[in-house]
């Protein structure tokens, strides 16, 4: 019995020693502070940076750089939890105040908690982008802080979004932020075609290997460009980037990578009405060119339609399509304004093509129809397709006395088709306007004599 007791004591003693031996293991302290403290510190650090810049920040926000361009904001974060901001998203640039918070989410987050300019990019009522807007957010995760430049991400678009804050450098936030936004909006307008602008907007790459033009294909709604270079083989080389406007021009994101160089920042040149990026003696230029980047083979297909006698219709009542240029719209609007004085109005015009030019009179015919007047008919030669895939026709005169007497009404339309340097015709799939969609083949015709003129219509 004694031995049993004795053995138990020994066992208890050994167990106690073991317990002590296991107790209070030393561990390597990776962090000095507890996680909760470190999170609080991270929040405080961000909050201090935001509020200590009393003249605010410039914010560049790309919601998804594979779908949309960017928006510039100017923001001033106040210690009372409010943020004042303006933006170049639209013409409403008044500085507005709202709430913000720095929170712990998946990481340190900057949250714009009530509505302001920043929510314009997540507005699902945005015309043309119903349901999504620019696919933006109000919640941003802090990603990096380098040299005072704070980069945030949207967790939903982690790979394609960027929200970058950099100190504004202003001395007067109220005045200078508005001036910068106005300058940025002016640059946004500079890339848009005017009545006299060529419809051939291109991205021109110029380096030691020569000059190459890409069709810019700029989407004004999305602020996004998908420049294409079409090779004679039919292969396409395509670029894509979002555009954010600055007070001096524009920046692209992602950068344009072309033949070993990278282009990001473009400066606007007022004299040439173009945006130019210069890198190591090479240039990338966004400009309105007198000649398209590429003329397709479509004209040969067009020449086969209806046995070489396709009939083209342009009628404003069928709705608008952005491929009809402002210059062409101007011709029709001016004519309509003139006719309105007499209770008349423009209805449509029809061009009867003949791609088998036999040298006869009136192989081609332009018919202009005005409500309240007889049809006006004008003779053209047959259409000749040139080696460069342009085509040419020549005006021969009015087809009848009424048309002769009223030719001044149709003169601008006659001049459009009578382009001395030829025309470019491109097939555009089935007809679509902002009002109607038809299965009819759609087509554009552009003048090379006056490249501000292009019309979108249909064959019937």
């Amino acid at each position, binding site marked *: 019995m004694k031995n049993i*007791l*004795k053995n138990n*004591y*020994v066992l*208890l*003693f050994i167990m*106690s*020693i073991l*317990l*002590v031996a296991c*107790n*209070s293991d030393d561990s390597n302290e990776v962090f000095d502070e*507890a*996680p*909760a*403290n470190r999170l*609080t510190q991270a*929040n405080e650090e961000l909050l201090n940076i935001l509020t200590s810049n009393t003249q605010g920040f410039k914010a560049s926000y790309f919601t998804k750089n594979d779908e949309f361009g960017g928006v510039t904001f100017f923001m001033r974060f106040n210690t*009372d*939890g409010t943020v004042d901001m303006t933006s170049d998203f639209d013409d409403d640039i008044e500085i507005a105040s*709202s*709430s913000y*918070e720095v929170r712990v989410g998946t990481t340190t987050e900057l*949250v*714009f*908690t*009530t*509505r302001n300019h920043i*929510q314009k990019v*997540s*507005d*699902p*009522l945005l015309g043309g982008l*119903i*349901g*999504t*807007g620019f*696919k*933006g*957010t*109000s*919640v941003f995760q802090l990603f990096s802080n380098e040299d005072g430049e704070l980069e945030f991400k949207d967790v*939903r678009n982690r790979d394609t979004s960027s929200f970058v804050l950099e100190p504004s450098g202003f001395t007067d936030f109220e005045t200078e932020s508005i001036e910068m936004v106005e300058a940025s909006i002016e640059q946004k307008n500079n890339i848009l075609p005017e009545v006299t602008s060529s419809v051939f907007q291109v991205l021109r790459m110029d380096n030691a290997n020569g000059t190459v033009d890409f069709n810019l294909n700029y989407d004004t709604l999305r602020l996004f460009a998908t420049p294409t270079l079409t090779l004679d083989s039919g292969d396409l080389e395509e670029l894509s980037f979002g555009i954010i406007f600055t007070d001096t021009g524009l920046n692209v994101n992602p950068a344009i990578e072309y033949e070993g160089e990278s282009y990001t920042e473009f400066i606007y040149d007022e004299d040439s009405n173009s945006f130019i990026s210069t890198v190591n003696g090479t240039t990338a230029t966004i400009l309105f060119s007198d000649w398209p980047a590429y003329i397709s083979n479509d004209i040969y297909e067009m020449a086969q339609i209806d046995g070489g006698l396709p009939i083209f219709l342009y009628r404003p009542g069928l709705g608008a399509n952005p491929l009809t240029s402002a210059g062409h719209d101007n011709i029709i609007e001016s004519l309509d304004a003139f006719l309105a004085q007499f209770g008349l109005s423009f209805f449509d015009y029809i061009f009867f093509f003949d791609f088998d030019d036999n040298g006869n009179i009136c192989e081609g015919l332009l018919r202009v129809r005005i409500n309240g007047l007889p049809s006006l008919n004008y003779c053209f030669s047959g259409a000749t397709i040139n080696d460069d895939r342009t085509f040419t026709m020549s005006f021969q005169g009015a087809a009848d006395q009424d048309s002769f007497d009223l030719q001044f009404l149709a003169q601008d339309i006659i001049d459009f088709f009578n382009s001395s340097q030829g025309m470019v015709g491109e097939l555009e799939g089935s007809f679509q306007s902002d009002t109607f969609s038809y299965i009819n083949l759609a087509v554009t015709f552009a003048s090379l004599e006056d490249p501000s003129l292009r019309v979108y219509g249909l064959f019937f």
Partner: protein
Amino acid sequence: MKKNIIYTFLVFASLIFVSCANEDGVSTTQIDTSAPILNETDVWLRENFVSPYNIEILYKWNINNTDIDRYLHPPYEASVKPAAVALQKAWIEPYTALGGENFIKEIAPRQFVFAGSFNFNPNSPTITLGVAEAGTRITLFNVDYLDFTDINSIIQPLKTVHHEYGHILNQNVPLDPAYGQINPENYTAQWFNRTDEFARELGYITAYGSSSEGEDFVEMVSEMLTHSKEQFDAIVESIQDEEAKAQIRLKESMVAEYYLTHFDIDIYELQELTYAAIQELVN
């Protein structure tokens, strides 16, 4: 014996050593307990919703309060109080007047979420006006687009609240299964292909009401509580199909019985109060 004493001493000494090892004092909490910044709207909401009813109105954006895959945004701060007043006048006060002071305190969602934007449903020609989650939270969308000069604009969110509150009442007292047997044959998930007028000719008060019996019941509630009795009667009497008209009248009587039996509320009195409040909001 002496040895036993020594062993005993050693064991207790070891235990004392263990129990004393690595002792930490109680320190302050590591959780951030600093008071949040409250603006005027926050203070008003605390005084008018949190304190009296334990209902929180969440209008400051938290992406987790709504569907993260939808493109939504918070409301303007200026939109919040008018929308909250509408809830107060046309929902809380009428129910309190008839159901008693504690009615809303005891049966109510504990949170409202206000979103400023419309909530478009992907791949569908519809928008979601509101969402009720487990009887604890109601989310109202397009708060920024309420027009307090247009009664139809105000009715829309209130209809959503009465609709969702109907669901919450049903979670407390289930509706009579006989309700779903009145005309179950035309319930459909493609309700959005019907107009309200067409649905009424089938015996449902709205197109959405023709989606299921649960929605049918709360659509009846919300239609009754956002129209005057005369307006509601006019809607029902405009139905051409007599059988459909009779079905809706039967549903109306079951809704009234449900309110009276389970909550001692005459829904027609409630209807008078809610409609008067709506008119006051617009005026």
